[in-house]
């Protein structure tokens, strides 16, 4: 065993020294109407990925829960006089794929196409119409509204989703992040095409957009594509800054009864922003605590040592404002108090003592050596560009990522966790079958 281990350790070192990390070369500019563009040339495959990201997620819902998502879903259901059938056919007969989605911060519309001009040209033109001339037809609105209501009903049969919604609600209180992107029945039922059109006109504007292009196109082609798309939007204004997320001044336990054999448990508090000064200590620290799958402490304690759950984890979602820090697992109802006690103790120990030197080194090796995989495909590069553009991260973010991970010390992690992670002020949500004791007590 010793011999074999040494062999591997040696390989690790030579590997690290020998790796020249090919980072995507990002070109960036701003279109005439004010949209920021990020472009990476990837000539290896005859295809292109285009994505427009808007600050138009559910954080912009205000008192119209679900409007961001429904607006986004309606874009390709009727545009420039074309109906949903014609739009779908237009893309698919050329093998193009249109995508869309919206979460709390971002809303996006994407296109994947082959790059030969007989296919790319018409697909781009159709994409431009969907993006810039949506009609919000009444009948399509009514149907998608019904589907969204059905989706809300569907969520009620999923204990994990019930838990997640309650977690955000209790964690964020009055902050726009409290609401769920799928809205509520009352709010969704009250939406109208007129309201969607107003939302679209406010937020789907060039100054509120980031354009991402990755693929087999030249810089000049990318410029033309970006202008053609973004400059067909109104210039508009960037979305107003979101309010700060308040820290919690007390812990809170929530129990929701559900006829499931397992309890879904989520615990946490406000986490960090994308541009947080503590980003790297918190990121690397959490990697050790619960962010690296089976080898992380939480998984080791709950799954590997005790067999209590299939999945046990912790993660930050860094957002424009502090996103949630979430720790969780699912387990048989009668084991949930035991597992929750283990989770709390594991967190408490980590906050008090921080990582061991061996853990820190292992985590850095994992992140640094694994970095080439994060940018190994056009899809992954597109996702990174969207994040860099949307959160206004520096263009050398990827280049500098590993050195910033390497620079993190155990003391910085302990200090950041002690200041930022407050178990006594956390929300604990339990969704599951009835057991005599209440949540988390």
């Amino acid at each position, binding site marked *: *065993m010793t011999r*074999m281990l040494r*062999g*591997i350790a040696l*390989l*690790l070192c*030579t*590997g690290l020294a020998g*790796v*020249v*990390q090919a980072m995507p070369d990002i070109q960036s500019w701003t279109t005439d109407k004010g949209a920021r563009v990020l472009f990476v040339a990837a000539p290896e*495959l*005859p*295809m292109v990925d285009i994505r427009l990201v808007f600050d138009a997620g559910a954080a912009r819902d205000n008192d119209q829960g679900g409007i961001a998502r429904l607006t986004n879903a309606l874009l390709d259901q009727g545009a420039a006089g074309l109906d949903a*059938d014609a739009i*779908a*056919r237009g893309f*698919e*007969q*050329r*093998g193009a*794929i249109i995508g869309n989605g919206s979460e709390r911060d971002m809303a996006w519309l994407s296109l994947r196409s*082959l790059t030969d001009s007989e296919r790319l040209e018409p697909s781009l033109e159709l994409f431009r119409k969907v993006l810039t001339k949506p009609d919000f037809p009444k009948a*399509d609105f009514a*149907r998608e509204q*019904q*589907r969204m209501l*059905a*989706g809300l*009903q*569907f969520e*009620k049969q*999923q204990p994990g989703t019930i838990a997640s919604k309650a977690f955000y609600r209790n964690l964020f209180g009055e902050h726009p992040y409290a609401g769920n992107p799928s809205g509520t029945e009352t709010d969704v039922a009250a939406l109208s095409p007129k309201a969607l059109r107003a939302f679209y006109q406010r937020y789907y504007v060039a100054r509120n957009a980031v354009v991402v292009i990755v693929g087999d196109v030249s810089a000049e082609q990318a410029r033309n594509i970006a202008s053609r798309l973004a400059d067909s939007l109104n210039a508009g204004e960037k979305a107003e800054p979101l309010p700060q997320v308040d820290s919690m001044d007390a812990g809170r336990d929530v129990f929701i009864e559900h*006829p*499931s*054999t*397992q309890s879904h448990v989520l615990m946490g508090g406000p986490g960090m922003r994308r541009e947080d000064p503590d980003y790297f200590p918190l990121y690397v620290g959490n990697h050790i605590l619960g962010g*690296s*799958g*089976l*080898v992380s402490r939480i998984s080791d304690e709950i799954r*590997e*040592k*005790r*067999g*209590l759950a*299939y*999945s046990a984890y912790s993660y930050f979602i860094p957002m424009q404002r502090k996103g949630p820090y979430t720790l969780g697992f*699912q387990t*048989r109802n009668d084991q949930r108090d035991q597992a929750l006690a283990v989770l709390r103790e594991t967190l408490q120990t980590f906050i008090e003592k921080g990582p061991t030197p061996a853990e820190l080194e292992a985590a850095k*090796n*994992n992140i640094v*050596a*694994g970095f*080439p*995989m994060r*940018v*190994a*495909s056009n*899809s992954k590069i597109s996702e990174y560009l969207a994040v860099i553009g949307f959160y206004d991260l520096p263009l050398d973010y990827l280049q500098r990522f590993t050195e910033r991970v390497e620079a993190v010390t155990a003391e910085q992690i302990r200090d950041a966790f002690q200041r930022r992670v407050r178990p006594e002020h956390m929300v604990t949500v339990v969704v599951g079958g009835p057991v005599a004791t209440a949540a988390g007590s």
Partner: protein
Amino acid sequence: MRGLLALVLGAFASAALADLAIHEYRLDNGLKLIVKEDHRAPVAVSQVWYKVGSSYEHDGITGISHVLEHMMFKGTQKHPAGEFSRIIAENGGEENAFTSQDYTAYFQTMEKSRLPVSFELEADRMRNLALPEEEFLKEVQVVMEERRMRTEDNPQSLTYEHFNATAYTVSPYRTPVIGWMDDLESLDIDDLKAWYQQWYAPNNATVVVAGDVDPAEVHALAKQYFGALEPSGIEPAKPRREVEQRGSKRIEVKAPAELPYLIMGYKTPVVLSAPAQSWEPYALEVLAGVLDGGSSARLETDLVRGQALATSVSAGYDAYDRLQTLFLLSGTPSSGNSVAKLENALRAQIDRLTETLVSEQELDRVKAQIRAGKVYEQDSIFYQAMQIGIMETVGLDWKELERYHRNLNAVTPEQVRAVARKYLTDERLTVAELIPLPIDPNHPPTSGGGGDVH
């Protein structure tokens, strides 16, 4: 997390490979190695595929292949429990494993110079797994939690499980990959040891490597690490061919839920069960594309938009299952519509396929998507390796991936109609309906709601 490969009830899985060379080797001990070059990024994926999965299991030990997959991370003489994952993690690797009806596969994606790390560990656990009982006793609890999460508390999965158990009479596809809970409870470490002895050997495995590698070097590495492993006598699984169905079957599944759900399945041949050179499986793939190859396909156009009968609906068929399979239709009726109404609408779609030829325009759309998909798929080395692994492990070979495209492109409207007439018949049909029971006894679900499958 390590787990089951999700069953895809969706558009047909189009398979593809580019023109870049694929290199194939066979070691003296029977291990097959296939290398696919992709030099876009300095990374490589290594996958080890074993010809064993739930369709190799017999009653009483269902789920054992998947439990064994979990146990493959629990140590050998050289590397005790947990060390496999720790070493891979230290090398920046992403690793996992998956079990399906027809295969069990393990993979690591790593920076390319780390390939020997993966080979050393995989070779070691191919023949030297320790299978300590105390680890098994914990891990089988983990699998039961996985089953609770995926199936027991998921009314649609529960319905699908009962649907399969009804549709198949003889075929081992009737049992769930994760196993029946009662079987999991009675498994013991000796069952696991016997299963490992029976199936884990170089002559029952295929190693697939895709990425920024030199095929000759990979071959040399494979010989170095896997070459000394002893082969064993592998008895092929019994055929257990499904008996001819003699009339439609129908079940209800009652479970706490908000929304009803419908699954329909027709017994259909696959490439391996059909006569050689048969075009039928390819015509069925195209038929699935006509119904559900995107938002402009018939099901979304007619049932979600046009008649607005369903909030979600899909069709799916996999020509590369090892045994005869099911052509599946599933969906949730929209608010105010019943499951019966959705079923009638789906049957009307089948009738239309048996009566009228699909249009050239629809066929062209399906073929355009296949062509484009062939390019898009190359953006993922993992997917490229996976396609090769599946082909090899079900008993075809990777060259089938090229035949697949040729054969799909050659499918005619007459052939689509012919397979619809021959296979999408009542005699071959099984229907399952999820009937929601109240989640909150004080607020029973409204009848005939609609749902979105997220």
